[in-house]
Each structure stands twice: as C-alpha cells, then as structure tokens.
C-alpha cells in the first residue's frame, strides 16, 4: 500500500561550505580579470533557477590574451624537469582532495547533479586523474611515444556542462604532465567549478599562465579553437560542434582530439542475472540525469526475457528519487538548463508521435527549476528518432532482438561508436560480442565505470583520440619527427 510506505526524511548537504562571490572574472596569467569589453553572464542553479553568480564573458580579445599568456608560460613550464611538473600536479591533486566537499557542493549547485554523485564519483575521479598524470610527468620517455617525448605547446580545451570539473581534469592533467600549457573554456551553464579550480592552482603555487580559464559562450570556444597560437585542440561535446571544429583546424598544424556524442546499446541476453542487469540499465541511462555521452540509451533486450526485464526495470524506476540535488538521498537531480529540457521534451514527444509507448513512474517534480522524470519507451524501432538521435537526458528506448548476431547488428546500426554494454553470464559470449561491437568502451556486466588509467573515447562519429591512460598522454605529445612547441625554435612574435 503506497500510503503506508515509509518516506525518507530530507537529508540536505549544507551549502555553507561554499563561499560564493557575487561576481567572477576570467583567469588569465595567474590573475582574475574582467572581460576586455566588460561583458558578463549569469550562472543559474538549474534546480532552483537562483542566480548563483555573475561571470565574465570572454571575447576574442580575451582569448588572444589568454593564449599569449599560455605561450609565454610554455617556455619555462616545458623546460621544467618532469619531476618538478609532477610535484605541482601532486599538489593540485592534494588540494582537490582537501577541498572535495566544497567542490562537490558547488558542482551540485551549478550543474544540478545529485550530491551523491559529485561527492562519490566526480570529485574522487578528479583528484585521481591529477594523481595519475602527475606520476607520468617524469616518465614520459616510457609512454611509448618515441625516445624524445616533447609537448605540443598551448592546448586550447573546450569542455561541456555534464561533468564540469571531471572534464577539466581529463584535459588539464595530461596536458600539464606532458609539459603543455592550457587555455580552458568551460560551458556557459557551468562555469563556477573551473573558476574554483583556478584558485586551487593558485594554492598549489602553479606558475602564472600555465592554466588559464576563460568563461564564456560558444563564440569564445570557437575563437580559441581557431586561434593561431593554439597547437592542440581538445574538445568534448556534441558531434555537430566536433565536426565544425574538425573543419576549422583543417589544413592547420593543430593536433586534435574530439570526444563527441553517443547512442550506446546496452544489450541484455536471456541468461543475464536480471536484478544486476536492471541496476546496470538504471545506472546506464539515469546516472547524471542521462547527461552522459556514453549513456546506455538504447536497451537491446533479448525477446524471451523482455517482459521479465521490463517489469523489474519499471519496479526499480519507481523507487528512483527525483529532486533537490543537495539532498543526499536524491538519485536524479535537475536537468542542466531550460534549453536542454526543451530539447529532451521535444525528442520525447517525437517518440510518442512516431508511435512508441511512453512510460514514467509516478513522481512529483519540484515547481521551480528544470526537471524531467525518468522515462522509458517501448515498441521502439531502429528508425525512430529516439533510437537514432542522442537525447542527452533520462530517456531510455527499448528494442528487442532474438540472436546475438541481430543484437550486434542493431547495436552497430548508428553513426556513433562511443560505448556499449553487454549483460550475460556466458564469458565466451561476452568476448565474442565485445569484439564485434564498434565502440571505444565496452562494459560487460557493469556500466558507466571510469578510471584515469583506462582509455576512453569513440569510434566513428563519436570522435577521435582517447582520454585516460597512456593513450590520453599521447594526445599531448609530439610524434617523433613532428615539430613540437608550436612553431619550433625562435618562437614568433606571440612570445614577445
């Protein structure tokens, strides 16, 4: 009886650990500064629509200034012994651990994701990435990139809003370990944790100009990618923007890595342990509100167990708690922005209009803020938009298959190729199916696991390059015979 159910008491995390200033500047050459043209924008908490702070909006002049600062800093930073660079990274990792609670709360406020995830997933991984790459800084000659490993120069990095601090760590840590300097642009809806990271760099005593943070919109990101003083471009975000970046850098000497969209198949075979598979499906699509490029958004379930799996899945979905991101019992937080909510809503409506059956557990959504209930669609075919397009929200499309061959064919029937899941007790089937899936990460009997030592990245239109592990380091080192440090010796005027 529903009315007899024990309700959870609210268990909110305190906001008091974060001190938010009313306004923040750009972080260039070790100092916070206003944008050259004085423009600002507001960062809003997606769960309450409360304005958290006003932030400087970078323009072309600011991009130019930041790139010059990074280029100037590059000479000394790249000449430091690796062991010294490593010590700076270790310091950053330590400060991140010390300030983990503050940063977790901040990230939940600014992004809308549950504190349980920022506290238990994002922040531990952020620190772990700096620890991992810190150890590489004095071992570059063992990274397999040739006998004389050299950095590329200035890295221009543009990151998305779904894991603001984690994506920063994925990009900044290997760049600095390899001896590059960095200009990073966080997403306009989640600029705050990157600015706090600037303060972490300051506490760690990082030399000025080694890390520069430009808050702003897509125009600033585009200017950064196109800036001729940038030697390496790293981007995580949509496939559409990734293609635009690939066009921008065409014909230049810039090295590029792109982590783009996905439409992962999560394949459940008839011999899978149902309860574990259901946990994996839930984690695969509802983790971080489904704002995950590698989310398992297409459930491929073997026809013979479809009913059993769907019943269990619906039961489990009914227990998901949607609400205040700062409540420690919350499973699903707020959608990151009004714009994103509109996109998810439109695609879900397209699912219904195209004849798929929509289901969501009864759940009361908060009045203010941006929210979307965990949703699943059955009766989905491969032609449906909800089966083809990345939704980037808590929406699961369910398809069925009869044979492993059909599962593989359906799984691969997408221009994306970032990730996939396999659920079966049969080891030989895992290995056979995993080897035939065209995806960069395959989780077997688990999903959405990340680790700094483990390469992550896509096939096909999910982008190129890998982040994490030795492979992630290679993206920031010159290939043997390749000119390093931008324009090589006798740097151009940018240096003066």
């Amino acid at each position: 009886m529903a009315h007899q159910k024990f309700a959870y008491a609210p268990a909110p995390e305190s906001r008091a650990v974060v001190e938010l200033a009313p306004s923040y500047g750009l972080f260039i050459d070790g100092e916070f500064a206003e944008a050259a043209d004085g423009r600002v924008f507001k960062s809003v908490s997606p769960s309450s629509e409360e304005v958290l702070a006003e932030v400087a909006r970078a323009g072309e002049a600011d991009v130019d200034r930041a790139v010059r600062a990074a280029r100037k800093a590059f000479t000394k930073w790249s000449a430091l012994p690796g062991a010294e660079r490593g010590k700076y990274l270790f310091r950053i990792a330590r400060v991140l651990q010390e300030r983990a609670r503050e940063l977790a709360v901040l990230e939940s406020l600014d992004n809308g994701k549950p504190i349980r995830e920022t506290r238990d997933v994002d922040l531990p991984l952020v620190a772990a990435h700096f620890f991992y790459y810190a150890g590489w800084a004095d071992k570059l000659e063992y990274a397999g990139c040739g006998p004389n490993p050299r950095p590329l120069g200035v890295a221009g990095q543009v990151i998305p809003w779904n894991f603001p601090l984690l994506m920063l760590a994925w990009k900044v840590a290997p760049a600095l370990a390899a001896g590059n300097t960095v200009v990073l642009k966080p997403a306009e809806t989640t600029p705050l944790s990157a600015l706090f990271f600037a303060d972490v760099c300051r506490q760690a005593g990082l030399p000025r100009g080694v890390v520069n943070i430009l808050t702003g919109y897509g125009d600033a990101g585009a200017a950064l990618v196109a800036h001729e003083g940038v030697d390496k471009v790293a981007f995580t975000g949509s496939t559409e923007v990734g293609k635009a970046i690939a066009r921008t850098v065409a014909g230049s000497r810039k090295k590029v890595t792109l982590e783009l969209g996905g439409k992962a198949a999560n394949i459940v075979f008839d011999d899978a342990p149902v309860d574990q598979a259901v946990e994996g499906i839930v984690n695969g699509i509802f983790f971080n509100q489904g704002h995950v490029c590698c989310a398992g958004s297409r459930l491929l379930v073997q026809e013979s167990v479809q009913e059993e799996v769907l019943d269990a899945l619906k039961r489990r979905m009914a227990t998901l708690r949607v609400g205040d991101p700062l409540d420690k019992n919350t499973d699903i937080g707020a959608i990151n922005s009004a714009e994103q909510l509109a996109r998810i809503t439109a695609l879900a409506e397209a699912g219904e209009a195209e004849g798929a059956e929509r289901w969501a557990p009864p759940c009361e959504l908060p009045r203010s803020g941006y929210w979307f209930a965990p949703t699943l669609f059955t009766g989905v075919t491969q032609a449906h938009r909800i089966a083809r397009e990345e939704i980037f929200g808590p929406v699961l499309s369910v398809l069925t298959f009869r044979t492993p061959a059909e599962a593989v064919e359906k799984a691969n029937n997408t221009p994306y190729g970032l990730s996939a899941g396999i659920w079966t007790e049969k080891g030989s089937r895992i290995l056979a199916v995993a080897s035939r899936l065209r995806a960069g990460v395959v989780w077997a009997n688990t999903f959405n696991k990340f680790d700094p030592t483990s390469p992550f990245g896509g096939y096909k239109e999910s982008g190129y390059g890998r982040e994490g592990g030795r492979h992630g380091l290679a993206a920031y080192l010159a290939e043997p015979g390749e000119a390093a440090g931008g324009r090589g010796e006798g740097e151009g005027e940018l240096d003066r």
Partner: protein
Amino acid sequence: MTVSERSEGAARLSVLKTYKLYVGGKFPRSESGRVYEVTESESRSGRGGRTGKAGKGGRGGAGDAGGAWLANAPLASRKDARDAVVAARKAFAGWSGATAYNRGQVLYRVAEMLEGRRDQYVREVGEAEGLSRAKAAAAVDAAVDRWVWYAGWTDKIAQVAGGANPVAGPYFNLSTPEPTGVVAVLAPQESSLLGLVSVLAPVIATGNTAVVVAAERAPLPALSFGEVLASSDVPAGVVNILSGRTAEIAAPLAAHQDVNAIDLTGASPELAAELEAAAADNLKRVRRPAPAESWTATPGTSRLTAWLETKTVWHPMGV
C-alpha cells in the same frame, strides 16, 4: 635458343601491357573509358637516357612530363572511387576478422611475390622516377624490406599499443587496438613503389582495407603492384588501386560517408586542407602530409597507430 635469337635480323616487337585498375581483386578499366599518357620521368630522359623509345611500340608520344611514352594508364573517375570503396567495405569483415598471425603470413607472401619480380620493378621504378638502375634497385629492395617489416608487425602491434589497465576497483580492464575500417590512401607522388609500400602496408597490416590512389605522374609501379597482390593471398578488395588525377579521385573519397580514414600524404598542402575539411563531415581519421617525409628512415609505429581505434573492455572481478 631464345626467341629473339631466332628472329635475328628482324627487330622483335615487344608485347605491351595494358595497365588497369585493381578493384575488388579484378583488373577493370576505368568505367569512364578514359586513359592518360604516362611518360618516362623527365629527369631520366633529360639525362639522355632512353629517350625516344620507339622500340616500345613506336607510339612514343609527348606526355606532360616531356619524357618518352610508357603506357596509357586508366584515368579513374568518381564512380571508380565509389566502386573501390564498396569492394573495400565488403572485404573489411573478413580481413579484420582474420587472425593477426594469418595477416602476417599473407603480407609476407606479398613480399615473396615482389621479390620474385624484382627485375620488373627495377625497370618500372627506374623509368617512373628517372633513377639509375642501381638506385632503382635500391628503392625496390627497400620496398620489399619495408613490406617484410610491416608483415612482422601484424601480431605485435596489439601488445605494443594495447594492454591491461590497473583500474582502482575489482575490474578486469583491457585495451585492445582494432582497425578503423576503410582507409583511403593518397600515395606519395615522389616515390612510386617504396613510398606506396610505406603508406599501404601499415594500413592493411593493422586489419584495415584500403583504397589507394597511385602517384599521379608515375602510377605504373603501383598498378603492377596490384598484380603482385592478386597473385599472393591477399583477399579480393583488401587493397584497391586507382590511377588518375589525385585531386579528382581524392575528392569523392574524402567526402565518402563509408570511408573511415584518409591518408593525405600524396596531396599538396592546398589540396590536403580541402580534403581534410571534407573529411570532417563524418569525422574521418586524417593523417596530414608531412613536409618532408623520408621513405628510407625507420618509420616507427605512427603509421600503424594512425589507423587503429582503442577498444577498452571492462568486466567485474569476483567469485
């Protein structure tokens, strides 16, 4: 007693070869029905080598390079390029699914066939590039050796480029390189055989299939190389060789939605920039032309890893 001895007195008319494309294991003419004149390299004829080789058919015409006429090569079209991609895609599952050991055996067999035709290639490369016999011989030997070098990589690159990842948790986590798919290759313009081998071998050693555009002015050694591939154990479609105008054939390949990667080595900087922009439409993997690539230097592994994706598989550990 040889034939020429028997026919002493009357100059023997040699048998000319009609050079054809190599697509899907067959030797078609260009569907367009077009050909272009291939001439001896100017540097060779300019040195007063074997100019006016009327004995080779008496058709000694003026080609664009100004040297003696060698043959009419097929002038491949957009449709030929698309046919080649279809053949390469069809061959991908089998070739990428073959064991690395098997691929190594097949590649080594190609080296055997090439070695067996050494004299033919010394002549063809000499004519194509205007090299002395000794220099042409050195280039052919280097090409055979380079091919053997890559044959040996098929079953080693996974160990060098992949490995186990020590993740912080009870998971078995393994990264393995896999071929990216169909790779379009613009062979270098200056080195008709050694250059071709240096860019082609790493593509197929790693399990990809290839559509190769031969050097524009000197395509004959590449077209003959198709005969070597056909007489070895390379499955049909794994390598497809086109001759013609590089810019004309490369454009549809760079824009093709079923091509996964493109090697721009044989493109000029302007053409390369254009092709790279077209390649962005489906996020092809792109290898840009290097300013001055030496085909005699040790290649390293970058031409292998350029055409590999890294797949990482996770599995929980426990009892």
